[in-house]
């Protein structure tokens, strides 16, 4: 049928053909708004949207406004200025940006490679293994501090690794903590589930029949991967990449706990500006740049996705 195929509401929600235009444009607008509110979906979305506006748009909007206030002011009703952005470039804050973006890129690439086999296994080989899924989800529910602290205990001098090699072979391992590679390790570790699950969702969208048809037509494993699996799983992979990239970009604990401040991430600068330095406008300007970068990436990807297809697995 040529009607919205998905679902009907129990009431008559379909916007009826309105009687011929009578009354002013304003009247029509009011009436259209009222009709919009008569849709059950629109009504049900309101509470969640309210939280979204009050807890996401509002705070981030305020940050953007603060970024235009003069240095070290605590009010947001002064004459707008761009001086904070000038400061960012003059005082070398771009170095933390460069580090953050670089580490986000490296971590995302590593995550793609190490997650693919597991994501593939999760949706194709271990299909029914709920236990495996739960084991992979569990880390999400343990504070990242605790887990990063576990790495400190593992990599410490006389820690789990060093202690093991010393007693077994008499080898003394070099210092492994407080450098850039171990920071990346921490990031890869913490954000692994954010790559793994979207990726596995993407792979589960590849129909068996397509895979079999490709084999049947003589494709090799590699060709099936390149021609069938990768393109069809792309939406999930892209979501995974975006999530990991954005979250690493704004991460803070990994560099502090494992990196021992050998690398300053942008979030650390933001935190310092807001707290120790009590320079809200500078912190806001640093955040604004982060918000802009994230917004471009996220909106760029989300606007291309059809979430109904991705989530309904039809």
């Amino acid at each position, binding site marked *: 049928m040529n009607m*919205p195929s998905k*679902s009907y509401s129990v009431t008559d929600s379909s*916007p009826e053909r309105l009687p011929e235009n009578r009354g002013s444009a304003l009247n029509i607008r009011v009436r259209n708004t009222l009709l919009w509110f008569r*849709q*059950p*979906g*629109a*009504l*049900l*979305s309101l509470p*969640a949207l309210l*939280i*979204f506006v009050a*807890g996401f748009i509002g*705070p981030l909007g*305020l*940050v953007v406004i*603060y970024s235009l206030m003069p240095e070290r002011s605590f009010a947001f009703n002064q004459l707008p200025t761009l001086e904070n952005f000038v400061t960012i470039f003059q005082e070398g804050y771009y170095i933390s940006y460069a580090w953050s973006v670089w580490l986000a890129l490296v971590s995302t690439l590593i995550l793609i490679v190490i997650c693919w*086999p597991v994501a593939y296994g999760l949706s194709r*080989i*271990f299909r029914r293994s*709920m236990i*495996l899924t*739960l*084991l*992979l989800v*569990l880390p*999400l*529910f*343990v*504070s*990242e*501090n*605790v*887990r990063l*602290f*576990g790495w400190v*205990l*593992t990599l410490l001098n006389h*820690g*789990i690794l060093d202690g093991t090699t010393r*007693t077994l072979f008499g080898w003394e391992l070099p210092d492994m903590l407080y450098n850039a590679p171990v920071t990346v390790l921490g990031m890869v*570790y913490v954000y*692994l589930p954010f790559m793994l699950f979207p990726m596995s969702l993407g792979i589960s969208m590849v129909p068996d029949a397509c*895979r*079999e048809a490709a084999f049947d037509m003589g494709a090799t*494993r590699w060709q099936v991967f390149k021609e069938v699996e990768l393109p069809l799983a792309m939406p999930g992979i892209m979501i995974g990449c975006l999530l990991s990239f*954005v979250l690493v970009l*704004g*991460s803070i604990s990994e560099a502090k*706990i494992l990196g021992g401040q050998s690398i300053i991430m942008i*979030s650390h600068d933001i935190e310092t500006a*807001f707290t120790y330095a009590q320079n*809200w406008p500078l912190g*806001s300007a640093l955040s604004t740049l982060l*918000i802009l970068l*994230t917004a471009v990436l*996220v909106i760029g990807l989300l606007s291309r996705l059809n*979430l109904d297809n991705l*989530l309904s697995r039809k």
Partner: protein
Amino acid sequence: MSATETAYRNRKSEKAIRVWTVVILLFIYLPMVAVFIASFSKLRFFMFPVKAWSLDWYASVFNSIEIRDYLGTSLLIAGVVTVVSVVLAIAGALAFARYEWKGRSLYQKLILLPIFFPQAVLGLAILLWSSALDLSPGWQLAVFAHLVWIIPIVTLVISIQVYGFDPSVEEAAYDLGASRWQVFTEVTLPILWPGIFSGALFAFLLSWGNFPLSTFTTGAEQTVPVWLYAKMVAGYSPQVPALGSLTTLLAGLVLFGGYWLGRRKAKK
């Protein structure tokens, strides 16, 4: 599984995937096990292999009134977040996946944005926002901050259940004489129950383990992860691994217990 599929499957690569999955599991659990081992070590500074074992640190955790307060705050926040986020996410998920309405596609994307944003920066922004609105930080602000991030996740989890739901079932109940409320309680809610249950588990556990949002919003009413962090950067205290292991165990218990309960209910 069809016969053809088995024929095309490559045994070797399947084995490699299994091995790799085990490697990843070890990678994930190695540091958690390290925390667990450290929590039983008698020494004030951690050395491996452990020479002397003790339960002293657990005793000190259990005897600390301070820690009991943090646990209480964490539980309070997680509990409130679970209830509120599940109620709002049920509505949100029906709007996300059940009804066809003008604006749905935009809503689907907007509502997900908080997931795609660094939590530490979001926490700071909420702190700034609250001070502009003259609200002081505390557990209520932490609940609010958690909701901003957790409602989208729970909405997604419940939506997946809603997608698998045949809307004509609701219509059938309505047609058989049920009122709208009866349709909701007799049909919609029971069918969505598995999704709601997992959503609630997610909400509780994510709130329980959250650090970046809590650290900027709880003010003086710290949660366990915030306290652990403060202790960690201030220098090593064996209470950290002990309490860390306890929170990990609790999360594991809730997760696996919840899964077990859910399965038992499904079997009935």
